[in-house]
């Protein structure tokens, strides 16, 4: 996983050079572990640069509030910088139907109008999109059945780094 994250960081640097006008936003609840790692790695690769990094919770913007059985408990949002006219890189662990990203775009626009938005995801589940949303940077592409669940485990949260398929 560390190698993949390194590669994603280098791809970001190719496009954003010194990150003067770029900010990273990780999506709660599970995308923040990836964004946190990427932020750390980028700081090592680009010492003496400052990269704005925030966390965004999309609970209140979900489109399934009236359908899901259980109520979602919100997580922390912390974006203590302006995203107005910035290039935003949204970071999440797994891209599946695209609905989370749709909600994230909505949520993000309440903080300002970025000049562009890119999407980075560690795992892209192909052929399962329900909305026209595609990643700009992908760690790994996976084909999985709709009945299966793809979960990324993180050292910080789950005690080990691993991607697992749950039936």
């Amino acid at each position, binding site marked *: 996983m560390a190698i993949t994250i390194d590669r994603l960081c280098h791809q970001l640097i190719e496009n954003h050079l010194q990150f003067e006008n770029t900010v990273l936003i990780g999506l709660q609840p599970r995308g923040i572990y990836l964004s946190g790692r990427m932020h750390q790695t980028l700081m090592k690769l680009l010492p003496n640069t400052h990269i704005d990094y925030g966390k965004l*919770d999309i*609970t*209140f*913007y*979900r489109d399934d*509030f*009236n359908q899901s059985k*259980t*109520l979602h*408990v*919100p*997580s*922390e*949002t*912390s974006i203590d910088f302006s995203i107005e006219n910035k290039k935003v890189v949204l970071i999440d662990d797994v891209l599946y139907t695209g609905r989370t990203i749709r909600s994230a775009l*909505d*949520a993000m626009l*309440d*903080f*300002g109008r970025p000049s562009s938005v890119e999407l980075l995801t560690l795992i892209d589940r192909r052929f399962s999109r329900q909305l026209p949303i595609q990643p700009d940077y992908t760690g790994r592409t996976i084909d999985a059945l709709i009945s299966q669940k793809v979960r990324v485990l993180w050292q910080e949260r789950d005690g080990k780094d691993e991607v697992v398929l749950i039936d």
Partner: protein
Amino acid sequence: MSLSVKHLLGIRDLQRQDIELIFKTADQFKEVLQRPIKKVPTLRDTTIVNLFFENSTRTRISFELAEKRLGADTINFSASGSSVSKGETLIDTVNNILSMKVDMVVMRHSATGAPHFLARHINVPILNAGDGINEHPTQALLDSFSIREKLGGVEGKKIAICGDVMHSRVALSNIYCLKKLGAEVTVVGPPTLIPKYMAEALGVNVTYNLREALEWCDVANVLRIQLERQNTPLFSSLREYSLAYGINRELLDSLNKEIVIMHPGPINRGVELNSDAADSKQSIILNQVENGVAIRMAALYLLAGERKKMLETEN
């Protein structure tokens, strides 16, 4: 995670986990209220009616703002100028409003138990915004939330509830809420304004000496003297009440520590609280009002989740 109740009728019915869930949710809404766009679309398919059978400024505005910040549609109803004066019953009034496809009810009523009665007859979530001398749950939640914010927690803190405890729904809800969160509570006021057997029934300390209570506490929650609910005189004059139980700068300065001052509003300035105490740095009265919107957003959001379940059982 969800609440253990379908309605928010009183703190009495809540578990400690419910209160903590509301606080956790309110933390996030508080952040939403700091954004450039202070509004989320969560309840955009929900219509909420605010039924106010009794006067209110803060609570009504706070609820309405909370509903609007959640993206809900709102209707406001006040008893004066409505068909209530023509003799329509409570259930008829509410059922007529609900048949226009309303999803939630926020209600204030001067009769104790009015929202509980309604909850037995209608199938939408009800939020009690104050019923008679019984409970005012969202006020108690925002009070404890404000204490948690100011002192870092509620557990083990010492809270004095001062003044007209007898007629105060804020006092009763606060006692339930604080006890459930593990705080120590003392009620203080003239003997005529403190119900008998309060200590035994609710597990609080009772004293009739204001200075003693203030010296003991971390936080003083000062109640409004509710003259509109006192049919017979319970103290000789406002001036005398103020001399014995009014909190002023001089009294606060003479204590051996700095305590936090709270008041649910509206303040009778110069009666239970002097301006030099109410407007001081020790007072968190306006923080309470600010937190009220976040707390009510959290309660509405969590109960809207219950509305889904109620609809499923209906069909």
